C-alpha cells in the first residue's frame, strides 16, 4: 500500500485541526447549520435518522492491519462496537457523537487515514479493482494512478463546491471489477500500439434515480495527460452542470442534456488551454509514486501439497475454498475473500472483535494487508495456498468463513429504513429473510448478484443487480419493486422491471420463485444471466405474479 511521507502527514494533521476549529465554532453558534453542513460533509460526517454517521475513506480499498485495528478501536471507543463496509470500499460508523468526531479524525490521521471528501459535493474516494496487483489478467496495477488522482483531487480548491458528488473509478484489467461504467468518470488502463500507457475515459455513468451507463469520452489519453484531462472535464462540469435541482445535478444529466458530442467539444476546448501545463505527469513523478508502494516479497517455493491434502479430507473446507478463493498471479498463492454476509448479520457489518481478528490474520498470512470489495466483503489477497486451511479454521471460529461469495446470499444492501432518513422501506430484514431462505442452497444455485436499495437513490445498486430489489412507498406501506438482468461486469446493463411492486411479506417467496425458474430452465453450467437472456422475462413474471 501507499505509505505517507511527512508532507502527506502534515496535510491530514492540518485538516484535523481545521475541522476541530470548525466544529467548535459550530457548537458555539458561530457557524450556522447551513454553513457547517458542507464542511462536515467534506469530513465524512452525515446527520442521519438516529445519530451522525461518519464515513472514512479507504483509498482504493487497501488497508493495513494497523489501520484495521484503529477501526476496531474507533468502533469500541466512539461507536457501538461495529462498523459497516460500503460498496465504495469505505467504512461507516453509525453512532459517533458530533463532539468526538475531531478526536476520531485525529486517531485516523495517526494511522495515515482520513475522511476527507468521503461525502459532499466534491470528488469522492477514488476506487479501483479490489484485486489490483494480484489478478492474473492485469495490464497494469491501477493503484499508483489512483493515488495520483487521489492527491490531485484532495482539497482541490476549484472542485470542492461542485453541483453534486463526483465519483471516479479506475480499472487496470480488461475485466472490469471496478464498475467503471456506473461512475461519473471511469478510467480503463490501456496501451497504445507503441506500448505507451494511457486511459480510455468514460463519462456520465451512474446509478441513483436516473441510472445511466457511462460512454467513452476519449478512447485513449496518455498517462502524462490524465490529470489535465480530468481537470478539463471537472471544469466544464463545475461551470455548466445544473445547480437548480439536486436530482439533475450529476454530470450524467449534463452529458445527456447537451449530448456527448457537445460535451466532448467543450472538454477538448478547455483541455487545449491547459494540456501540457503544470498538471503534466512526468514519468519520474509516476515512478516516484509507484515506489511509495510496498513491494510484496512472495515466496516462490510454495507448493500446493498441504492444500491438496486438506481439500480431499475436509469437505466443508473444500466448499469454502471453491466459493471464497481465487487464483493469484503468483504460483503457490491464492486470494481469499472474507464474507461479511453471514446469516443474522447486516450485509457489510463487522464487529470490533472481528476487525481485530482480521487484522491479526492479515499480519500472520497476508503481508499485513486487507482489501475491501465493492460487494461489501473483505479480501486477504496474498495467502500461501498451504496456509489456507489454518486461515479458514480461524475465520470459522469468528463467523467469518461463510462460503457464499458471489451467491445470492452475498447480496449488496443499503442501510434502508433502519438507518437512513430517505428510505421508503427497510432492506436489512429483507436481506435476512433471503439469507435464511437460501443459506443451505446458495452455492448449489450458483452465482447470482442480488442488490437491494431502500429507495430510488440506489445506494444498494439495485439497478445493476442480476436480481434488483428497490423499496418503494405505497401509501405509507413498504413495497418492493423487482428488476432482473442488471450487470456491473464488463458490459454493464440496467435490469428490466419484472412487474408491479410486491408486498413486503411476499418478497422472499418472489425471489424463491425467480430462482426456481432459473433452476428449472438452466442448461448445464448456464449462468443466471444467460438463462434469462435465452428464455426472456415472461416465465419469471408468470411464476412470480401467477402465484399471487
Amino acid at each position, binding site marked *: 500500500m501507499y505509505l505517507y511521507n511527512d*508532507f*502527506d502527514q*502534515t*496535510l491530514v494533521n*492540518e*485538516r484535523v*485541526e*481545521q475541522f476541530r*476549529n*470548525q466544529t467548535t465554532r459550530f457548537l458555539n453558534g458561530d*457557524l450556522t447549520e447551513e*454553513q457547517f453542513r*458542507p*464542511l462536515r460533509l467534506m469530513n465524512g460526517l452525515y446527520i442521519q435518522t438516529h445519530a451522525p454517521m461518519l464515513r472514512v475513506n479507504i483509498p482504493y480499498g487497501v488497508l493495513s492491519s494497523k489501520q484495521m485495528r484503529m477501526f476496531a478501536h474507533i468502533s469500541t471507543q466512539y461507536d457501538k462496537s461495529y462498523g459497516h463496509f460500503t460498496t465504495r470500499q469505505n467504512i461507516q460508523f453509525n453512532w459517533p457523537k458530533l463532539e468526538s468526531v475531531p478526536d476520531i479524525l485525529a486517531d485516523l490521521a495517526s494511522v495515515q487515514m482520513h475522511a476527507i471528501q468521503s461525502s459532499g*459535493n466534491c470528488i469522492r474516494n477514488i476506487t479501483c479493482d479490489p484485486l489490483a496487483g494480484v489478478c492474473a489478467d492485469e495490464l497494469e496495477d491501477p493503484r499508483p494512478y489512483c493515488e495520483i488522482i487521489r*492527491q*490531485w483531487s*484532495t*482539497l*482541490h*480548491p*476549484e*472542485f*470542492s*463546491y*461542485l*453541483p453534486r458528488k463526483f465519483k471516479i473509478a479506475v480499472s487496470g484489467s480488461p475485466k472490469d471489477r471496478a464498475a467503471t461504467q456506473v461512475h461519473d468518470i471511469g478510467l480503463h488502463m490501456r496501451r497504445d500500439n507503441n506500448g505507451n500507457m494511457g486511459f480510455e475515459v468514460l463519462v456520465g455513468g451512474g446509478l441513483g434515480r436516473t441510472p445511466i451507463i457511462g460512454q467513452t469520452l476519449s478512447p485513449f489519453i496518455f498517462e502524462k495527460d490524465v490529470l489535465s484531462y480530468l481537470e478539463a472535464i471537472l*471544469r466544464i462540469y*463545475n*461551470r455548466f452542470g445544473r*445547480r437548480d435541482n439536486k436530482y439533475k445535478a450529476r454530470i450524467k444529466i449534463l452529458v445527456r442534456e447537451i449530448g456527448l458530442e457537445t460535451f466532448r467539444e467543450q472538454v477538448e476546448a478547455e483541455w487545449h*488551454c*491547459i494540456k501540457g501545463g*503544470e*498538471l503534466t505527469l512526468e514519468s519520474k513523478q509516476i515512478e516516484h509514486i509507484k515506489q511509495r508502494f510496498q513491494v510484496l516479497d512472495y515466496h516462490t517455493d510454495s507448493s500446493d501439497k498441504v492444500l491438496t491434502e486438506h481439500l480431499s479430507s475436509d469437505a466443508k473446507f473444500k466448499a469454502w475454498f471453491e466459493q471464497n478463493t481465487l487464483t493469484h498471479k503468483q504460483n503457490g498463492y491464492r486470494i481469499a475473500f472474507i464474507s461479511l454476509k453471514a446469516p443474522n448479520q447486516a450485509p457489510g457489518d463487522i464487529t470490533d472483535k472481528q476487525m481485530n481478528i482480521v487484522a491479526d490474520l492479515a499480519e500472520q498470512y497476508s503481508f499485513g494487508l486487507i482489501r475491501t470489495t465493492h460487494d461489501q466483503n473483505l479480501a486477504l489477497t496474498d495467502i500461501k495456498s498451504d496456509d489456507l486451511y489454518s486461515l479458514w479454521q480461524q475465520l470459522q471460529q469468528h463467523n467469518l468463513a461463510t462460503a457464499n461469495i458471489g451467491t445470492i446470499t452475498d447480496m449488496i444492501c443499503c442501510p434502508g429504513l433502519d438507518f437512513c432518513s430517505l428510505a421508503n422501506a427497510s432492506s436489512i430484514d429483507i436481506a435476512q429473510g433471503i439469507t435464511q431462505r437460501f443459506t443451505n442452497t446458495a452455492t448449489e444455485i450458483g452465482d447470482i448478484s442480488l442488490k437491494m436499495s431502500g429507495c430510488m437513490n440506489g445506494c444498494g445498486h439495485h439497478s445493476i443487480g442480476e436480481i434488483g430489489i428497490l423499496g418503494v412507498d405505497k401509501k405509507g406501506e413498504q413495497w418492493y419493486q423487482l428488476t432482473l438482468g442488471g450487470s456491473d461486469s464488463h458490459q454493464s446493463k440496467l435490469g428490466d422491471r419484472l412487474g408491479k411492486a410486491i408486498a413486503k411479506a411476499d418478497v422472499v417467496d418472489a425471489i424463491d420463485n425467480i430462482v426456481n425458474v432459473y433452476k428449472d430452465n438452466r442448461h448445464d453450467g448456464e449462468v443466471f444471466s444467460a438463462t434469462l437472456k435465452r428464455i426472456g422475462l415472461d416465465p419469471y413474471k408468470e411464476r412470480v405474479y401467477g402465484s399471487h
Partner: protein
Amino acid sequence: MALIKNKQICSDGWPNLKTSATSAGRVIVSHDEWLKNKDELILSGKRLGLTLEADEKIDEFLHDIGKFSLIIINIASFADGRAYSLAKTLRFTHQFKGEIRAIGDVLPDQALYLTRVGFDALQLPDNKAAELTLQTLAGFSAFYQPN
C-alpha cells in the same frame, strides 16, 4: 465591510458599490454596461473595474480583459462553486493580472480555496469575519495541487 487583499486587511481604493459605482479616477461597471458604453469608458481614461456573476458568459469581453484593473465576482451563494472556475479561468487561462475580488456570500472557511484559484481580494461582512479569515488562510502548509 472589510477587505482582505494579499492576506492583509486593507482599505479599499475602489468606489463602494453600495453607494456609487464611480469615484475620482475609477469606475466599476457591469458586463452589460461595458458592452453598451465601451468606447466612452475607454475615453474617460478612468481605471476600470468590472462586476461579474459567477455564471456569466465571458466570451464577449475576454479580448478586452487587459483594459480592466479589477474584476469583481459576486458569489450569490457560498455553495455555488462556479466562481472558483471563473476566477481560475480568468487568472490562469486568460492571464488576467489585475485584482480579482470575491464579494457576496464569502465565508472565512472558503477563503483558502478562493485565494488558491486566483482571487487576491476577499470582501468579508465585518472585521471579525476578516480576522477569522486571516487565521484560516494560515491553516495549511501542505497542498497537493501545483500553485
